[in-house]
């Protein structure tokens, strides 16, 4: 089963990449975009069956390895599941 992890810079962290993308959107004449933030999407292919233990492990991987809590927030979801946390 596929797990998808979303890593985003926290709201108060400057995102120069997002600003650069926003700048080019304005240059190209796209109006109505108030801001852009760039994050990361990471896909993990999990062995089946996905158990409570593997869900707990996914949480640990997302929080301990795939994101840095000082600057990033992290969410994850399983195929057919809602986004957590």
């Amino acid at each position, binding site marked *: 089963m596929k797990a998808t992890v979303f890593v985003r810079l926290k709201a108060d*962290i*400057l995102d*120069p*990449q997002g600003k*650069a993308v926003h700048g080019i959107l304005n240059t190209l004449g796209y109006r109505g975009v108030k801001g852009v933030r760039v994050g990361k999407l990471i896909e993990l292919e999990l062995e089946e069956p996905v158990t409570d233990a593997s869900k707990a492990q996914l949480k640990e991987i997302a929080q301990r*390895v795939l994101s*840095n809590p*000082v*600057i990033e927030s992290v969410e994850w979801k399983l195929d057919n599941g809602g986004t957590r946390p």
Partner: protein
Amino acid sequence: MTAGIVVFPGSNCDYDCHFVLTKILKVSAKYLWHKDTDLNGVDLVILPGGFSYGDYLRTGAIAKFSPIMTEVKRFAAQGGKVLGICNGFQTLTEAGLLPGALIRNKSLRFICKELFLRVENTDTPFTQLYTLNEIIQLPIAHTDGNYYADTETLKRLEGEGLIVFRYCNSSGDLTEESNPNGSLHYIAGIINEGRNVLGLMPHPERRVDPIVGGTGGARLFASVLNVEIPSLAEG
């Protein structure tokens, strides 16, 4: 005194550190492979600059899980001296040995440039040979050197004198132009509460040998390794 220089896959300033320590400052130095689980009795651990693991995921994010980092953490907890330069500083913050994080430069560019730094604290084993508020010159070479920490952490760093180096101009003034990566509070280097773990983005090892045009980094190594600087390298 012996320094141990950790070599991660992608480290590229390990040899520079080894060269200036052994050839210029005439101290003993050895390499420590990142898969080692023993620090071999060294008195100082250096995490050198480079792009460990290609900077994948985040700078230092994979290096912090290398086997040797367990020993480095244990060594630091016992008061052992640890110096992280550039990618080494990034790895120390990722590993939780220093607070905060190094994020993308505000310009999004890799910046390789000689900068001025103000020495903010000389009451550390790494800076005792400098003068308080002295202005030195060291080069930076990084894409992710923009120091970030939350307000509370910054307050603690300021209050406890844990900021060791700040970017400044040639007169020592803190200006936007002198802080090209956008670091909060112009932070170039910080130390932990125990005063035994120092991290900085500029490269002191590139300014030890007088032949390269400056020796602003020599006293950092001489301070922490308690050695005399050969008269040739003074300044």
